[in-house]
């Protein structure tokens, strides 16, 4: 029997009297032990469908129509008590952000056991035993310590494992996983996929895996369903969809997945001047503790880093979160001052592009104001000239002129990142640091932004330090690659060389996680 069956599901939001349909006529069936991937870009309705299936769309302004049969029971018509019983015994759900999805002021043990405490009559001793088992099941080695710890004391990967343990403790028949690996490092991402597969095979738990990352879905799921604007576009076996997509949209999605393919561009000039030279750079952070009279001790977070960037060159910096990438970027721009060694710029107006364009732009200013700001502060141009510059820049980043009167929140994610890039380019910098500029974007948009950055380099001759956790992106874009681990550069070589002939074991691991054939 099907564990989850969704029939003709419509989800409508009625905000401000204007109904807005986010999911339309969705049908899907999940048999016991199945692994189904739900794929689509942001706004495609995949998260809404999952939340509906878990009975978590409870706002007053949401209208649900159709049938969601969970183990034969329609959760849209059952009583709240019945729904809660189902939630506690049949479905488990894990979310994208393991940090914010855990209660910060309760111990891990308390949260993992919660389902048992609410829905069974086990004693606290039995619950504890089950929780320990669940924690070991998700391959958390130090289960005893983690049981008593609070979420902030764990790493991102550990937190997601805890979420999985909590979801699996009542041995549900269905696990809903909403982008569970998006916030994690690539190597951790791989481990998490392994774990999900293992749990699926050991306990026969069906998995509905929601992701925007097609490669990831392909590696886990036997079937997949592609959503676009709330409608199902195509459904079928993963391999077949991947190799022979029938619909245009599916093909677009697959093509946009970053691959180890270089974006072609003119080779670097042999006599290109150097714009940045870093030698023997060490950076420090104050250690915790210290007091009023005692000097704070320092911790070295960047170790003896040296490299140089030439005009028109794109250099990639890869490494996992916490390895010191952002500290390096801040130090290069003079935002972090506690360092030794030398950083010498010959470039004028070095600028930065940030990961989250949504929060990097002032929400109460128009695009025009934001783009004019550097000109107002650093040049003597008249208002007329400034407006002319803004128009030229919008044209360069391929944004329509009509957008300049809008506010950032009225733009899409891709448009916002274009505004960020435009703002960084306003003073015609010779050197740009882009810190994960595309990781918050959908794959199709990601592809456009990367292409735009390539064009800008061709056109303006700017040099870019591209920081990313995704080796595929770096390989596509960069002339040379620096691989960073624990604050030190472990390998530096041409992109082609890194890909074909990696030296350091860590580089090899990164390549493997990124899906390179090795």
């Amino acid at each position: 029997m099907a564990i989850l069956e969704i029939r003709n599901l419509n989800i409508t939001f009625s905000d401000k009297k204007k109904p807005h349909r986010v999911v339309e006529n969705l049908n899907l069936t999940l048999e016991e032990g199945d692994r189904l991937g739900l794929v689509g870009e942001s706004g495609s309705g995949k998260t809404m469908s999952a939340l509906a299936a878990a009975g978590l769309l409870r706002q007053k302004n949401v209208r649900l129509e159709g049938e969601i049969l969970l183990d034969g029971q329609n959760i849209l018509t059952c009583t709240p008590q019945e729904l809660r019983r189902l939630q506690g015994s049949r479905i488990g759900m894990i979310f994208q952000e393991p940090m914010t999805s855990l209660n910060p002021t309760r111990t891990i043990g308390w949260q993992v056991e919660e389902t048992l405490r609410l829905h069974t009559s086990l004693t606290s001793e039995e619950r504890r035993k089950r929780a320990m088992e669940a924690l070991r099941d998700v391959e958390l080695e130090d289960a005893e310590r983690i049981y008593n710890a609070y979420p902030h004391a764990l790493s991102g990967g550990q937190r997601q494992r805890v979420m999985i343990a909590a979801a699996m403790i009542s041995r549900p028949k269905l696990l809903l996983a909403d982008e569970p690996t998006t916030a994690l490092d690539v190597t951790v991402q791989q481990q998490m996929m392994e774990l999900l597969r293992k749990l699926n095979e050991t306990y026969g738990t069906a998995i509905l895996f929601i992701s925007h990352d097609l490669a990831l879905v392909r590696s886990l799921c036997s079937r997949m369903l592609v959503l676009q604007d709330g409608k199902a576009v195509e459904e079928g076996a993963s391999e077949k969809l991947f190799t022979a997509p029938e619909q245009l949209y599916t093909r677009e999605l697959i093509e946009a997945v970053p691959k180890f393919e270089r974006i072609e561009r003119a080779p670097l000039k042999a006599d290109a001047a150097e714009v940045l030279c870093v030698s023997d750079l060490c950076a420090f952070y104050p250690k915790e503790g210290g007091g009023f009279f005692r000097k704070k001790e320092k911790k070295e977070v960047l170790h003896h880093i040296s490299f140089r960037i030439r005009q028109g060159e794109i250099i990639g910096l890869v490494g996992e979160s916490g390895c010191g990438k952002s500290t390096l970027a801040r130090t290069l721009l003079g935002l972090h001052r506690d360092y030794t060694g030398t950083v010498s710029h010959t470039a004028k107006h070095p600028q930065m592009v940030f990961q989250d364009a949504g929060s990097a732009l002032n929400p109460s200013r128009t695009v025009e104001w934001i783009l004019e700001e550097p000109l107002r502060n650093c040049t003597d141009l008249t208002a007329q000239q400034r407006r002319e510059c803004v128009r030229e820049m919008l044209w360069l980043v391929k944004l329509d002129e009509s957008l300049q009167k809008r506010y950032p929140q009225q733009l899409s994610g891709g448009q916002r990142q274009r505004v960020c890039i435009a703002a960084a380019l306003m003073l015609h910098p010779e050197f740009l640091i882009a810190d994960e500029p595309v990781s918050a974007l959908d794959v199709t948009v990601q592809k456009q932004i990367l292409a735009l950055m390539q064009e800008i380099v061709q056109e303006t001759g700017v040099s870019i330090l591209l920081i990313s956790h995704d080796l595929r992106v770096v390989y596509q874009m960069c002339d040379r690659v620096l691989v960073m681990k624990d604050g030190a550069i472990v390998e530096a070589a041409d992109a082609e060389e890194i890909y074909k002939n990696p030296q350091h074991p860590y580089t090899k691991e990164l390549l493997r996680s990124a899906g390179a054939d090795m």
Partner: protein
Amino acid sequence: MKYAGKKLLSMLVTLLAVSFLVFLAFDLIPGDPALAQLGTNATPERLESLREEMGLNEPFLVRYFKWIGAFCTGDLGTSYSYHISVGDMISEKLPISICMTLMAFAMVLLISIPLGILSAKHEGGRLDTIICTLNQVLMSVPPFFSGILITLLFGIILKWFTPGGFVSYDENFGAFLGYLFFPALSIAIPKAAMSVKMLRSALVTELEKDYPRTAYSRGNTPNQVMYSHVLKNGLIPVLTFFGMALTDILTGSIIAEQVFAIPGLGRILLTSIMNRDYPVVQAIILLMAFVVIVVNFLVDLLYQKLDPRITVE
């Protein structure tokens, strides 16, 4: 333990600084305690000998250290106007002020926590709108004015208590508490209204986070999500405000004591300032500073208890 020692040291330093400032302030204010005692008809000789007797002719620092030295041994000095020990004067009035403060603070907690939760639960609903509107009104009523209104309504019209009929705690403790109820209420109302507002917005913020959704996905009822997940997190930011409210109530009781004719600390503080009875004034101010510092310390400790992310070394 190391933390407690450090904290204790910093509390002592703060108290010393306050004592010095208080002493300095009363030295700089124009007015002569000796003159205030003798009246304007005093002969210069009589005035001079009294100044000598009261030790007012000694240099400032000598007087300060004598005073603070005696203070540390428990001798709070002698009142200029009543010629009795300041320690006795304060310890007689202290229970009245403490009772009223605690009562008002308990009211703040008892009113604001349930109403804050109720308001957050029905965010945007009719009940929430009513509570928020009422809040806005009550928040803007100063305690002396609400004191007058309460006296008029409950004292004169409804006759639930006799205005001015204060009963001392050693006569009839029940009647004493009964008399303090309405003064305490007048201090508590604006503080409670502000607490409701703060707690409500803290809870609403918490409810919009991801972990309540996780809690729902495990089959918690809305009440369970509120009480075993959200409330503790929502109380953390409000805790500071509760600490401030407690010290505000203590110092704010001076006005309520005037309005309701209660012979508490605030009363003697006011008369002592007018009579230039500096030993009494200094002792009371130092006492209040002490309470403020202790309450802040307790708030710090409670913070750690509630929020595991905060650890002190």
